[in-house]
């Protein structure tokens, strides 16, 4: 039985008719065409699908679209209007990405970290990334990027 679902994605009101089993990530990718959110596994381990739901980082493969009814969802496409969010800019500056596949999830996760902890240590960053796997960078430059991104976000909010 298809269900209708409404939510706000990247500031825009959206709606759709989905099967109840439709995952939030499928709704974003297949119904809304927001393909920046990726699917890298089927056991909720890799974190390529992390988005923000009502301001909190969520693996969008682990949430049904209907559970996001009425929620405010932000995806990688909605972080900055045409430019780069300070965290995106930091990943660019510090070469925190290679193939780019895990990158949207990493960035969404990193921004949520900084909301919790505005000045995370290297160890805190590494532990926070427990749910995000990268196979290209060896994490070295991701950690560097997040440190710099956090500093830039602190600067931006002062």
């Amino acid at each position, binding site marked *: 039985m298809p269900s209708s679902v409404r939510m706000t994605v990247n500031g825009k009101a959206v709606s759709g008719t989905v099967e109840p089993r439709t995952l939030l990530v499928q709704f974003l990718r297949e119904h809304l065409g927001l*393909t920046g959110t990726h699917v*890298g596994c*089927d056991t909720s*381990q890799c974190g390529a699908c992390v988005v923000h739901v009502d301001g909190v980082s969520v693996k969008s493969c682990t949430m049904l679209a209907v559970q996001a009814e009425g929620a405010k969802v932000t995806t990688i496409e909605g972080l900055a209007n045409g430019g*780069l969010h300070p965290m*995106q800019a930091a*990943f660019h500056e510090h070469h925190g*990405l290679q193939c780019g596949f895990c990158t949207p999830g990493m960035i969404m996760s990193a921004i949520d970290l900084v909301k919790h902890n505005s000045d995370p240590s290297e160890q805190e960053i590494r532990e926070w*990334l427990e749910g995000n796997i990268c196979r*290209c960078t060896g994490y070295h430059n991701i950690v560097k990027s997040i440190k710099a991104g956090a500093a830039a976000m602190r600067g931006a909010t002062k």
Partner: protein
Amino acid sequence: MSETGIGAAVRRKEDFRFLTGQGTYTDDINRPGQLHAVILRSPHAHAAIRGIDTAAAAAAAGVVAVFTAKDMAADGVGGLPCGWQIHSKDGSPMIEPPHPALATDRVRHVGDPVAVVIAETKAQAREAAELIAVDYQPLPAVASAAEAQKPGAPQLFDAAPGNLCFDWHLGDKAQADAAFARAAHVAKLDIVNNRLIPNAMEPRAAIGEYDKATGEYTLYTTSQNPHVIRLLMGAFVLHIPEHKLRVVAPDVGGGFGSKIYHYAEEAIVTWAAGKVRRPVKWTADRSESFMSDAHGRDHATHAELALDKDGKFLGLKVSTIANMGGYLSTFAPAIPTYLYATLLAGTYTTPVIYCEVKAVFTNTVPVDAYRGAGRPEATYILERLVDTAAREMRIDPAELRRRNFIPKDAYPYQTPVALQYDSGDYFTTLDKALAAADYAGFARRRDEAARRGKLRGIGLATYIEACGIAPSAVAGSLGARAGLYEAAEIRVHPTGSVTVFTGSHSHGQGHETTFAQLVADRLGIPIENVEVSHGDTDKIPFGMGTYGSRSLAVGGSAIVKALDKVVAKGRKIAAHLLEAAEADIQFKDGKYVVEGTDRAKSFGEVALTAYVPHNYPIEELEPGLDESAFYDPKNFTFPSGAHVAEVEIDRDTGIVELVNFTACDDFGRIINPLIVEGQVHGGLVQGIGQALLENCVYDPEGQLLTGSYMDYCMPRASDVPSFAVSTNTTLCTHNPLGVKGCGEAGAIGAPAAVMNAVLDALSPLGIRHLDMPASPERVWRAIQQHSLAQAAE
């Protein structure tokens, strides 16, 4: 050096689309009228197929078609070809069994494709696939190559008695035996190189499309080498001529070797698109990736190193059983042979080396090249042996290596295993790594750790790598069924901007930046005016793709050759415009200058003249400024390095903490140090993953026990430290850039360095050997066993 020229840490041009979610990976592409394919895979490691009933699936909601091997056979579809032929010791060719895209009468590993369902939605295809009734007769299975060799083992192919694919060797056994007879000491190891699953973060995907109007097929696929796929799939599997087949590898989310090969799913969706006359898309679930992407490594080896009383290496003997899996993947036979045994000289002057390799079929996923491909296996054996010898002979491991390094003035250096190294300086590289790691201060750190109850160890590894397999003629004589050159086209546009078409493929390596730097530097134009295009057989003249750290050394050299042609043609045009002799014109900093004068034409003016040839030597010169080149290297390149790992082990839990990792590498000339360092970091963590975390496990019946991220331990951010990496440069002597390649280095040096450190930490307990991964359980068991043994004494 300019801010964007050769040697500058230019931030990547490709980043913006990836950072903002605008990359285009294969699964992001949706074609009009697209259907979805789901592959039904074997749950058995080994079984006969007595029948397949697809009626219920075909009648299910949304299903457009269900195909099995019979349908493909009826269309004359061929099997997946193998691209490298090895000959056994006795001269006979390897056993090359058929590898059908969909299994015919037998399945040979868990995950072997059996049928495909094509439906309006993926969910419908998935549900219908569950309605297919396959009548399997399970057969005894074998997963271990050593077991598969034994008498009475289950047999995979009638044509391969004893499951033997080939029995190959390199070197002179009699000479090796003679060297061992003179030895003062022989170090011996029985050693396993654990099977790994590559796990690029983007699962494989493919979309086949058929154009009814033109009869042309298009395949979008997650490939490292679209032209190779076009050739293999077109010529051998589907019999589609190249001019009717376009293969596009758009943004690809990592490869590490696993996306080199021609896979069944590519052929299935392309063929099926022609059958159903609509685009067909397949995207792997991660669990499918685990059981269908080619795996890596899986060697079991006995190795012996003979030394004289001073620790000088006299000879090396290596005997390896290599697991090939249930079929031969595209380049599988080359990995445990010419990319392995030829590397066993390493950085040393070992005068005699003998290596024999038995390649064996088992009921497992096919094994092929994975980051390093043969070279990590060779390095691991050699460096573990060197440390074993050092410990047994009570010589410092760094000193033992120095006593055996190839001298700085010995290049070109001919090894006893076919390769000729062109350049290197292993002494300085090791010294730099040891200084950066504070090797001299280790004893103090070990004592400090001991006071905290921790066992601390330090380990080193030096390595040599052979990158950019070449030349084509030599590779061909060794069994390659392909050329190993690269192609490039430089298209200069009328207003002087440039598009570079390269046969290399970037799936994270940053070619769009590195190649643009190279072109901007050579032509003296802003880097913003250079666009790099790759991954589409309709755009690129030809290409062999990206693997074996070849892109800059081979692909970059092809670009340089094409640039040279552009500059040369531009010189003729400039000579005409400047009314000067061609010989008097110099090209420098983006300008053609009449030597000794201030008369000049900019590159842009020359480009415009080439396309608006009003004042032009039209009788002698064609208009336009567009050149292409193929580059076939004269030799491999030989990057090298020294890696130092330092670990602390908790005696109570067996947990190994990597506390420090230092690498010094020689990659030849470096175009973009930022990108190179990133490549090293990534390679290191794959190597560290192999040493401490990752292990593909099959049970004795061939069931894959590590089929998800819940079971296969991928390195996470908290498993590794930040790294201290540096370089020590000697130039490659035979390519125009002097570059060597950096993509695989980390994965080659790290496993041996980490395991040497682990064994150094455990040596006070009398533990001499552990196989990878040094998981907490294995380390804990070893500590318990040795503690009990010591207590009993």
